[in-house]
């Protein structure tokens, strides 16, 4: 296998209404086996994917948001959320799931995975990524 690449999964759509969010998460989970450098970013309505307190009982489809909490176990430690997208929707980081990972370089200390970044910072992250998978 070639060298490790930087993968950025860009999530742009609301969690329900279309299948993109769930099928994006499926790629992330499968892709974890390839031991690449993985980041997730949530922009636009994509920020709703990682909101706390999701209840899909009225929709008749599965609430897959608990799966995001497992990402730390899949070695996904970098989750970026665009500040402008949160602001435009009246949301703050407090409205989002409390996503954590264990830092093996720091005695497995539990750390926050989510980092709120500006659109400009996110553009730089995309530019620096080898592969951008956009959903």
């Amino acid at each position, binding site marked *: 296998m*070639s060298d490790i690449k930087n*993968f950025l999964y860009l999530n742009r759509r609301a969690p329900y209404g279309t*299948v993109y969010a769930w*099928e994006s998460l*499926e*790629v992330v989970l*499968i892709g974890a086996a*390839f031991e690449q450098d993985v980041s997730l970013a949530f922009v636009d309505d994509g920020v709703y994917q990682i909101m706390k307190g999701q209840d899909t009982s009225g929709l008749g489809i599965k609430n897959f948001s608990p799966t995001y909490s497992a990402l730390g176990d899949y070695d996904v430690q970098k989750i970026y959320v665009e500040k402008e997208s949160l602001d435009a929707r009246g949301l703050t980081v407090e409205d989002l799931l409390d996503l954590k990972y264990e830092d093996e370089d720091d005695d497995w200390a539990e750390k926050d995975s989510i980092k709120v970044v500006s659109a400009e910072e996110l553009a730089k992250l995309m530019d620096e990524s080898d*592969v951008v998978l956009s959903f």
Partner: protein
Amino acid sequence: MKFVIQVNEGPYNHEASTSALNFVRAALDAGHEVFRVFFYHDGVNNSTRYTTPPQDDLHIVNTWSELASKHDLDLVVCVAAAQRRGIVDEGEQERNGKDGNNIAPGFRISGLGQLVEGCIQADRLMVFGD
């Protein structure tokens, strides 16, 4: 350059598949390599041989099949997305006890790992969809 292509939308409803076809043809004509084309989301609907458009419409499925045969392209359909949408090859037919299969020539059903592996092997991923 070595490309991997991802097609996220089905034929006819959305231009993504025809744009991908045009891109693949242009890339090959220009001497580039297409490592793999991966069909995901409703993009898996590009792979059913039961597709029967009116005669004066572009037959998108056959065009993919012909292009694959001419250039030895690897057309991979995501198994999880295919199962949700009723795209079946012989193996899936047997595994899931279906009464038939509908995969078009030149396509094969496989896992999402094929997309990730393609991204690792290729120089660039091109995504076609919204």
